[in-house]
């Protein structure tokens, strides 16, 4: 195996890993945030070494609601994240009709 082959394998490995993480975060933002929070908590445990704890801290997700907040501009663009405790959503509510 030549040096080029080694470098090539490393570069491709990193690029594919980054692509997988990006796709995961974009397509499943809430799951990605949950996984990130768990991973961060596991690394940031008191028994871990200093560098692992620092890495855990850095990995802590910035927002608990997902990658983009709950505001939505269009697919591919995020709107502003609402400030209230409740997300700014107005889901449908159906009331059963009164029986005659």
């Amino acid at each position, binding site marked *: 195996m030549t040096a080029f082959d080694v470098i090539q394998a490393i570069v491709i490995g990193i690029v594919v890993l980054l692509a997988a993480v990006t796709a995961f975060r974009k397509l499943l933002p809430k799951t990605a945030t949950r996984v990130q929070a768990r991973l961060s908590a596991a690394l940031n445990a008191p028994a871990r070494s200093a560098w692992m704890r620092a890495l855990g801290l850095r990995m802590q997700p910035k927002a608990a609601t997902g990658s983009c907040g709950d505001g939505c501009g*269009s*697919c591919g663009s995020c709107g502003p994240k609402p400030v209230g405790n409740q997300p700014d959503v107005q889901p449908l509510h159906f009331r059963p009709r009164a029986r005659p």
Partner: protein
Amino acid sequence: MSEAVLRIALVGNPNCGKTALFNQLTGGRQKVANYAGVTVERKEGRFVAPSGRSFQLLDLPGAYSFAATSPDEAITRDVCLGRYPGEAAPDLIVCVADATNLRLHLRFVLEVRQLGRPVVLALNMMDAAKRRGIVIDVDELQRRLGVPVVQTVAVQRGGAKALIERVDGDVPEAAPSDPVPLTPAQMHAQVRELLTATVTMPRETAAVDDALDRWALHPVMGMVILAGLMFFIFQAVFSWAKPVMDGIQAGITWLGAWSTGFLPAGSALHSLLNDGVFAGLGAVLVFLPQILILFFFILVLEESGYLPRAAFLLDRTMFKAGLTGRAFIPLLSSFACAIPGIMATRSINDPRDRLTTIMVAPLMTCSARLPVYTLLIAAFIPARVVGGVFNLQGIVLFVLYFAGIFSALAVAWVIKRMRRDKSEHALIMELPSYRVPHARDIALGLWERSKIFLRRVGGIILALTVLLWFLASFPGPPANATLPAIDYSLAGRIGHLLHYIFAPIGFNWQICVALVPGLAAREVAVASLGTVYAMSGGEDAVASQLGTLISHQWSLATALSLLAWYVFAPQCMSTLAVIRRETNSWRNVAIAAGYLFGLAYLASFATYQIASALS
């Protein structure tokens, strides 16, 4: 001690310029348009006055009254009354009113004043009022209302200066409220009284509007103008974009050759860059000019005030199909992207009408379909001139857009038949004054669209293209391989497996492979086709040759079948996620995905079989 940040809420009737004022004050770039119902969410921003004082600004959806009838109006009511979860009532309410239409807007001003909170009235669009010869005695209006009144022009630089100066001063005292709440009739009487005392209007409507509306709202001529406009837009998408598209293609080809030149040919890294990144992304990137041309027309129509007129013209058809007139704006927004369109259904008060609109919104032709449509049209439909003026490719694009609209109406009609509740809601919609679109706003809108598109290309599309390249490269072919390497890869095997399902509708295994990452977003399918064909055939500059390549390898029946598939298939996970959020139900997501995929398969099957039989 630092001074507390003052919280200001912008409220007012729809289309009075709240969001334009919000953008002016905060430097934000929230969407503005010349029709009611653009803002359905609460937006938040900050600005610092010249004195150095900070303000938190809330832009709320437009409301005609605090007796909210739709979910977006309920947000405004709840925020103003301090009932919004986790949020106190604002310190100051800036009530924005259209100075050219005070007869309607002052009624809501009286309701806001009734809250007994500090209120400032911003008379917006004062430039338009002056042009129409409307004279407002601002001091008298201020005295009679008992709240400060300022004049603004939200679309002009510095047009909010008076408002900034007023809010930067002392917080006004609580507005005087009547001890007994006024009845609607009393409010109307009070508005009439205020108008008589403070406003002089040469005529109730603008002369230009009346003259234009005689044509634009004519039952026959209006429809002819609407059809002509749409036809012209799709012609322009094909005719005007060509030179820029050729330039982008040449640039990508050059960049691909230059950046892979130093890598050994046949190496995995060379393949990643050439077959993955450049073949995949290049295939999508060339459609940017066409997307921008389409959005240029959408933005111009939005700003001009023509779109509500189109809603008026189409109301009868929509009504017969079982859609409420208020569904027009959400469906129109879905032409850009189904997500804001589905969110805009919050302006529909009847939950069943809202659900019907959500269900049919994905059928509107969003801009993500454009790369797929134009790739196939350019490859299979000759660029022939029909009738001496029309481009055949533009006509086919027009038909595809029309097919989306027609199927949405048909599905809404079926839903109407299935509904037990037969209540009907008439369209009540304000027709705004016509306005000459601002070049700056159009330029900013196009810039935003370019950024969204490029972010998607550099984000999700790049990520999925790289993953597809990986799946199409590994595992490698066996030593005695006779077929291209991709046939032995994981992606190749998935494609061959899916081919059993899609063979009856004419899709080859390469299309099947592209459909899988294309589930995330429609344009990804184009990038994926670029990558799959680059890896199957060893084409060096597939980014610029994808159209030529598929025109040689696919039959016309296959191409038409794929076009039919994309008219219906819900190949967008974000849309399904928003349906889940807005309906609070996985069942509705399953119904939407199920019927759309079902229709897509049926339409493609019929198209393929008929086209094959005829050819």
